[in-house]
């Protein structure tokens, strides 16, 4: 059994927004609702879901950038300095790099903040690690393409020798050829440096080739939590099934869009589920282990194999 680097238990984060500009009535939005997960050393956990399902809120809670309303995140003793050992790569490489700093300084900054010695040589090593030439140090972010910028973000994240990197949709704004390059690079780095990734994505395709475990999120809740292999071969939850279908065949069985503010009784997925029965509208299912290490939030898990 591998070491558990991170464990989150029963995280909750609700936001309250006004119904309209003038109204005093507040609506509760459950960004993260009773969510638990664990991340093991040298493994990748995928967090999959549509936009607005709370993926990024989850990442922020883990990084302690925001406080959860309840629940806690515990790290293994291997991680003694959170800011140094847990790093993040953001979705948009165009606005996550300071346009006024050259590449050398961007990568140098975390090294100086954490007092790492021999910093200037380390910058060159880091650039080499992400397969960029050493002389890009004097250039500025605007001179680089999206894929190159994402490598620079990655070099910056790797600077402090982190154990965990949170990747928030690192490839979704890149085109497919660059996506492939970046994903292969990430995989190489994981093998070389023993990194753990928390990989946030809305695209199932990435999960198959890349992630060991998967967590499917919908409206702040876990719909399915299992190994990526199980998820692809036998998805239990109708939501996982439809995400798979959308990735694979560009078809969707889902009804309508993500409900935003409506109160839903029973299963929270019942407004979009293609297989609803009476029970789904009355009783909310629990996230249960349906099979060995395969958890699903559904009264009627799918039985057929694959999609």
């Amino acid at each position, binding site marked *: 059994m591998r070491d558990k680097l991170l464990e989150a238990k029963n995280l909750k984060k609700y936001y309250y927004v006004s119904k309209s500009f003038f109204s005093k009535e507040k609506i509760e939005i459950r960004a993260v609702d009773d969510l638990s997960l664990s991340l093991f050393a040298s493994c990748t956990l995928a967090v999959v879901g*549509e936009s607005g399902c709370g993926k990024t809120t989850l990442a922020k809670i883990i990084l302690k950038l925001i406080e959860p309303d309840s629940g806690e995140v515990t790290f293994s003793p291997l991680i003694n300095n959170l800011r140094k050992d847990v790093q993040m790569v953001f979705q948009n490489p165009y606005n996550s790099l300071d346009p006024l700093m050259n590449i050398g300084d961007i990568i140098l900054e975390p090294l100086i903040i954490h007092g790492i010695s021999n910093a200037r040589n380390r910058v060159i090593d880091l650039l080499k690690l992400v397969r960029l030439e050493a002389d890009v140090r004097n250039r500025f972010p605007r001179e680089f393409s*999206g894929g190159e910028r994402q490598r620079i973000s990655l070099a910056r994240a790797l600077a402090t020798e982190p154990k965990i990197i949170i990747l928030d949709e690192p490839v979704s704004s890149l085109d497919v050829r660059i996506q492939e390059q970046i994903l292969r690079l990430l995989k190489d780095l994981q093998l070389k440096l023993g990194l753990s990734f928390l990989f946030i994505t*809305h695209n199932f395709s990435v999960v198959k080739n890349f992630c060991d475990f998967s967590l499917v999120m919908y409206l702040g809740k876990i719909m399915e939590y299992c190994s990526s292999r199980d998820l692809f071969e036998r998805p239990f939850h109708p939501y996982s099934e439809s*995400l798979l279908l*959308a990735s694979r065949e560009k*078809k969707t069985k889902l009804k309508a869009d993500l409900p935003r503010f409506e109160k839903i009784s029973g299963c929270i997925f019942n407004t979009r589920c293609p297989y609803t029965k009476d029970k789904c509208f009355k009783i909310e299912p629990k996230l249960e282990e349906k099979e060995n290490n395969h958890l699903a939030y559904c009264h009627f898990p799918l039985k057929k194999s694959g999609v």
Partner: protein
Amino acid sequence: MNEILKIEGLSVSYFNREKAIPALRRINLSIKEGKVLSIVGESGCGKTTLAMSIARLLPVNAEILEGSIIFNGQDICRMSEKELEDIRGKQIGYIFQDPTAALNPVLSIGAQLIETIRNSLRLDKRQAHLEACRLLELVNIPDPTNYLKFYPHQLSGGLNQRVMIALALASKPKLLIADEPTSNLDVTIGAAILQLLLDLKVKLGLSIIFITHDLSLVSFLADETAVMLQGQLIEIQETQRLFNQPREMYTRELLNSSKFASLI
């Protein structure tokens, strides 16, 4: 079958102070009525420049050097601004990549739709309102009268993209140009938009030019596929044949990347 659009020997360059940067080099292609043509390539290969040329919406530092774009027997390259008004957004509809940026944030969906409809169809307000409802229904937005009151920021990306499609269809165009219409959207929403485009193609007999970097989208939608590399059209084939027997090495590489990054 009739060709609705025919591009011949089209070259476009961008100019900066020192030099000319060629963006399109002698592009030849044509699209038949009621068919979907997909243009695939990496970012920077000139896909969007091509789409913008068809609309004559190129920025001021770009120039069409040679070639012709024949639409309905007329050459778009040689039209005056006045003549273009009749083409842009009327006979040719456009859908852009980022729907939230393409819609006017200070006007309601209804106001934008009704403005566009009255601009091209000469209807009174009440009729235009009904037409707006009909268009929203056409793009599968339920309860259209309610949605007409909303502003773009109140709607999700997927709904905004549907509104964009409705706007593009308002003037009953014959040709629709969709520039990466799904790449900013979630997979499930993107899939629904693709399905919608396919339905509309059949229902309205639209011709569609579909621009994307992702070959996996193409196989479900396009009759023909053109591959672009550095401003040149390197391969154009029937979509199924392109998938089975790509002629060019580059197409093969692109297919492999798409296979890696998506599940085809």
